[in-house]
C-alpha cells in the first residue's frame, strides 16, 4: 500500500479533475474504453515490471507487439492458418525471444539495454520483411476471435467489463501471487537487489533472469494480440512504436525502481491507468489540443515522479 499510495492519489486526483473538465468522462462508454486501454497497456507494463525488478530493461516490447500484431493476421489471412495455431505460434515465438534475450544477457553477458535495443530494431525489421510492409488485419472476418478483445461482460444495461480487463485481472492476480507468494518471486527481488549474493545463496540467477524476459515477451505478445484484435489494423512500420516507453513509464510510475529489486503489480497497473486517463483527458477537454498530448503526458509523468520522490524523502525523515 505504502509503495503505490502516491500513484493512487495521482490517479484519483486526475480522475476527479477529468470528470470536471472533460465532457462525458464518466459515461459508461468512456469508462469501458478506459478499462480496456488500461488493460492493454497494463499487460505490457506488468510484463516489463518483471524485468525491471531483476534490474534489467526491455526495449523490444513495442517490436514484439508489432511482430505478433502483424504476424497473427498475416498467418491467418495470408496463409490460412487456423486462428488457434496462429496464436499458439505467436506465443511460442515470443517465448523464444524471451529465452534468447535471457541467453544473451546471462550467458554472453551482454547488457539488457543493448540486447533489447537490437531486438527493437530486428523484430520490427523482420515483421516488415515478411509482411512486405503491408498493413495487416482481419478485414471483416474472424469476429469470434476478435471477441477476445472487443467482447464485454455486460454488468448493467449500460456498462460491461471489457474482456481484456478481465484478462488483466487474471494476469495481474497471477503476477501478484508469483511475486509475493512464490519462491521464484522472492528470488527475483533478491537477485534484482544483489545478483552476486543471490547466486551465492544457490539461486539459479541465470534461469530466473531468463524467466523474467520470457514473461515480459509473452505478455507483450498477449498485448500485441489484443491490440490487433481490438483495432484490426497494424502497420508494420509503426505498430507498437514507443510502447516499451509507455510500459516502462507506467512501471516506474507504479513504483518500480530501474535499479532493480522493487515494484508492485498493483502500482504498475495504476501507473498504466494514470497514463490512459491522462490521454483521455487531453481528448475530452476542450482547450487541450491533441498535438499537446506528448507535452502533457511528459509533464504529468515528471510531476508525479518528483512528487513521489519528495514525499518519500519527507517520510524517511
Amino acid at each position, binding site marked *: 500500500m505504502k509503495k503505490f499510495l502516491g500513484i493512487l492519489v495521482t490517479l484519483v486526483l486526475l480522475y476527479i479533475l477529468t470528470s470536471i473538465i472533460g465532457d462525458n468522462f464518466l459515461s459508461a462508454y468512456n469508462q469501458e474504453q478506459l478499462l480496456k486501454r488500461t488493460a492493454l497497456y497494463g499487460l505490457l507494463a506488468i510484463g516489463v515490471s518483471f524485468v525491471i525488478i531483476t534490474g534489467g530493461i526491455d526495449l523490444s516490447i513495442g517490436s514484439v507487439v508489432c511482430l505478433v500484431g502483424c504476424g497473427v493476421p498475416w498467418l491467418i489471412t495470408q496463409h490460412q492458418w487456423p486462428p488457434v495455431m496462429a496464436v499458439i505460434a505467436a506465443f511460442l515465438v515470443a517465448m523464444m525471444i524471451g529465452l534468447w534475450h535471457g541467453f544473451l544477457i546471462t550467458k554472453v553477458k551482454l547488457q539488457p539495454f543493448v540486447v533489447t535495443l537490437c531486438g527493437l530494431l530486428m523484430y520490427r525489421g523482420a515483421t516488415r520483411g515478411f509482411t512486405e510492409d503491408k498493413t495487416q488485419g482481419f478485414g471483416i472476418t474472424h469476429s469470434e476471435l476478435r471477441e477476445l478483445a472487443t467482447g464485454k461482460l455486460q454488468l448493467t444495461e449500460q456498462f460491461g467489463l471489457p474482456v481484456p480487463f478481465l484478462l488483466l485481472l487474471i494476469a495481474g492476480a497471477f503476477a501478484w501471487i508469483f511475486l509475493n507468494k512464490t519462491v521464484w518471486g522472492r528470488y527475483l527481488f*533478491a537477485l534484482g537487489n544483489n545478483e*552476486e*549474493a543471490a547466486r*551465492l545463496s544457490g539461486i539459479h540467477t541465470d534461469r530466473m533472469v531468463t524467466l523474467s524476459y520470457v514473461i515480459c515477451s509473452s505478455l507483450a505478445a498477449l498485448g500485441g494480440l489484443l491490440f490487433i484484435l481490438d483495432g484490426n489494423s497494424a502497420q508494420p512500420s509503426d505498430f507498437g512504436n514507443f510502447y516499451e516507453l509507455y510500459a516502462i513509464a507506467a512501471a516506474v510510475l507504479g513504483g518500480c525502481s530501474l535499479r532493480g529489486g522493487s515494484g508492485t503489480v498493483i502500482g504498475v497497473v495504476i501507473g498504466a491507468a494514470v497514463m490512459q486517463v491522462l490521454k483521455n483527458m487531453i481528448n475530452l477537454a476542450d482547450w487541450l489540443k491533441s498535438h499537446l498530448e506528448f507535452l502533457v503526458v511528459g509533464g504529468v509523468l515528471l510531476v508525479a515522479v518528483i512528487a513521489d520522490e519528495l514525499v518519500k524523502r519527507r517520510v524517511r525523515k
Partner: protein
Amino acid sequence: MLTAHGIIKSFPGVMALKGVSLEVGRGEVVSLIGENGAGKSTLMKILSGIQNPDEGEVEMEGKSLSAASVTEAQTAGLALIHQELNLADNLSVGANIFLGREPCRFGWIDQKKIRQESAKYLSKVGLKVPPETLLSELSLGQQQLVEIAKALSTRAKIIIMDEPSSSLSQGEVEMLFEVIRELRKGGISVIYISHRLAEVQELSDRVVVFRDGENAGELGPEEMSHEAMVRLMVGRDVSQLYQRTAHDLGETALAVNGLRTQANPYEEVNLELRAGEIVGIAGLVGAGRSEVLEAIFGMTPAVAGKVHSELPKSPREAMAMGLAFVPEDRKAKGLILDLNVEQNTSLASLGENAKGPFVNRSHEVALCEEMTEALAIKTPGPWQKARFLSGGNQQKIILAKWLALSPSVLLLDEPTRGVDIGSKEEIYQLMEKFAREGMAILFVSSELEEIMGMADRVLVMREGRLNGALDRSQFSEQAIMDLATKTQS
C-alpha cells in the same frame, strides 16, 4: 590540535552519537575502539566533513569545522581512510591516489608527476605494483593499501584510519605500523580504529572507548591491558576469547584434489577435512586464499580439480554436496541489503522448505526466530532491512542463512572481518559448537591470533600454492610467517 565536543548525530530510527567528545594532540596516535555500531565511523565521517553533526563542535587548530565539506576538511589537514573501500576500479592505482587532487595546470593533468609521486607512496606502504596498474587487477587487501597510500599522499596533519587492517595480514600490518610511527615522528597525528586489540596495544599513545554512541572511558599507555579495553567496550569480561575443547574427529568431510584456480592456474591445491575439524588458511594478502574457497564453492569455477568426486560449477552444485560459504565481502556478496532479516535468513533454504512453488511462511517465521535466538542476533525485529544492522549482526545473519541448511562443511572467508570483540567471541563459540556437533570448518583469516586460537590445523598459502601445514602443536607466529613469506623446498 583537533577537538570534537558534544557531538550528537541521529539517523532515522537510531541515535548514533549521543554527545561524544574526542581530542587529538600533535603527533599523537589515538586509538578509538568500541563495539560494532558504537558510532566510531560516524564520528570519523563527521570529522572529515562527509556528514555534519546535528549538534556539537569540531575544531581544528582553533578553526571550526562543524559544517565543513569534504574539501574544507581536507584543506584543514584531515584525511580519512574509509572503512569500506572507496576507489574507482576503472582507474589506475596512481589516478586513484591523486583522485580529486590531481596536480594540474588549467585542468590539464600532469600524468608524469602522478606516476612519480604515487610510486613513492606505494613503496611506503609496501605495495609492489606499478602506478599504471588498473585498480581492478588488485585484490581487496592490495586495494586497502592503495587507500592508505592515498591518505598519506594528502600530507594531512591528522590521518584517520577506520579499520585499515581489516583485510591485511601480519606482514602488511607491520609495514603499516612502520608508516604510522614515521608519521608520528614527523608530528602527524593518527586516529586509529580497529577491532584487533593487540594492534591497538602495540601502537597507541592513548585509547578512547565508545559505547552506544557515548564516551565509555579513556586509557593511558599504562592502563591499556586487553581486559581493561574489553571491559570498557563490552561492559563485561571476555577473557576466554578462544575456547576450544578437544573432541573426536569423524569421517572425511571435505576432500579437495588437484584444484587449480583461475587466479593461479599452475598451482595445485589438495586438502582434506574431517568432520568436527576446524582448519585455518593463513597467508599474505593476495596469496590466493579467497580464490581457493571460492573455487571449492563453485563461485568462480576452478580450472581443474575435484571436490569429493566432481568439480562444482555453481554454488548450487556445491550446496548439494553439503557445503556452505560465508564470503569475505559481506555487503557485496553476502547479504541482500534491501531484504529484511527474515528474508535474508531464509534465502538459501527457501526452495528446500517450499510448499510447492509457494514460500512456506510459517517455516520462515519460525526459522528466523530460532536463528535470532540461537545466534543472539540483535535486531529490532525480523522486518528490519539487513542494511541497517551493524557489521557483526550482518555477519551472523549470513551464518544463519547457511546453518538453516545444516551443511556438513562450512567455508568461512575472514569470518570476523570488522566484527567487534563481543561478536567475535560469539562467532568463535558458534564455530566451536558446530565443530563439536560434527561440522567441518575451513576458514581463511588474516589475523594470526585468530588462526592460532581457533584452528586445529593451519594451512599456509604463498603466491597461490599451499606452502605447508602446521598442527596445533607446531603453531607459532614465526612458523606461520615463515611459511607465508618463504619458499619451502
